């Protein structure tokens, strides 16, 4: 069970979500992607704050 809460992995996941959201915010291709970009950024950021309190696998 403990292995599920490794900080490094989840931080990478959250980072990817944020980066995807930022890409959607800034891309010039689809209005729809732009519309939903902020939800992704917000979710990723809040997620990052939560998962960065998981124990690190180096401890």
């Amino acid at each position, binding site marked *: 069970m403990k292995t599920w809460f490794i900080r490094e992995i989840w931080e990478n996941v959250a980072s990817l979500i*944020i980066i995807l*959201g*930022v890409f959607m915010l*800034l*891309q010039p291709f689809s209005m729809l992607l732009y519309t939903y970009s902020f939800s992704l950024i*917000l979710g990723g*950021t809040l997620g*990052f704050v939560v998962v960065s309190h998981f124990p690190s696998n180096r401890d």
Partner: protein
Amino acid sequence: MKNTLSKSQGLSDRALTWLFVTPTILLLLAVNIYPLIYAISMSFTNFYANKPGREIKFIGLKNYIRILNKEDIWETMQATAHFMFWTLLLQAIIGLGLALLLKRNFKGSDILTTLIVLPMMLSPAVVAVFWTYMYQPQSGIFNYIINYFFNFGEFTMIGDVKLAPWSIIIVDTWMWTPFTMLICLAGLKSIPNYLYEAAEVDRANTFQQFLHITLPSVLPFLLLALLFRGIENFKMFDLVVELTGGGPGSTTELASINLKREAFEKWRTGYSSAFAVIMFVTIFGLGNIWVKVMNKVKER
């Protein structure tokens, strides 16, 4: 841990901790967090700061929905993206290139590094004003030099719809390439010599050495520099406002310039607060990633 030593003398460490940290935290709470919470709460209303008598209504997520469905704002985001993409690309290539050259440690490289760094430390707004002078179609030195080499005939950087986005990219690249260069240089200097020595024993050629040793070691540093510049250019304001003011039309109207218009010219406070919150959350998210990269770099 070391408390035992001081327990009997003067203030306890615990008291001292609070004494030392509290002023900073309080000041940041008052001038930073309070305004932020204020902005968040305003973003759910239809508040206009220039109409004090008007009733303030709670309108839920309407501001956010409107911003995220508005073509104009999407366009300012695209202008920002165009600006970010080219500045980061150019600064990465030129900065890394300069760092690789400077690493060869020739005589006088210290003085040259200091000279190259100068533009970065200057006030962007003040520098931008001066660049508008250098961009003058006739008397401007920039246009003169370009025409001397390429002979385009008369052209104007700032007034032209196609060229204006490039006028800001050029100035930003001129200012901030040294930043990427400095950080890449620090990355290059952190590579231990024995890696190259081992590679030479293995008969790896220069290109292979670059690909397998130099590039992987310098990449986190480059990422750190680009993330930082990315955040800065996402919220870019001073340089562009003084250089083009968002024009011509709205070709160089970056997100924060649009935000300034909504907030301080149209006074749509609630609406612009929602916009501000969107920008803030984006930067906060990127900032988290930045700190992560920073910790990785620090371990070296």
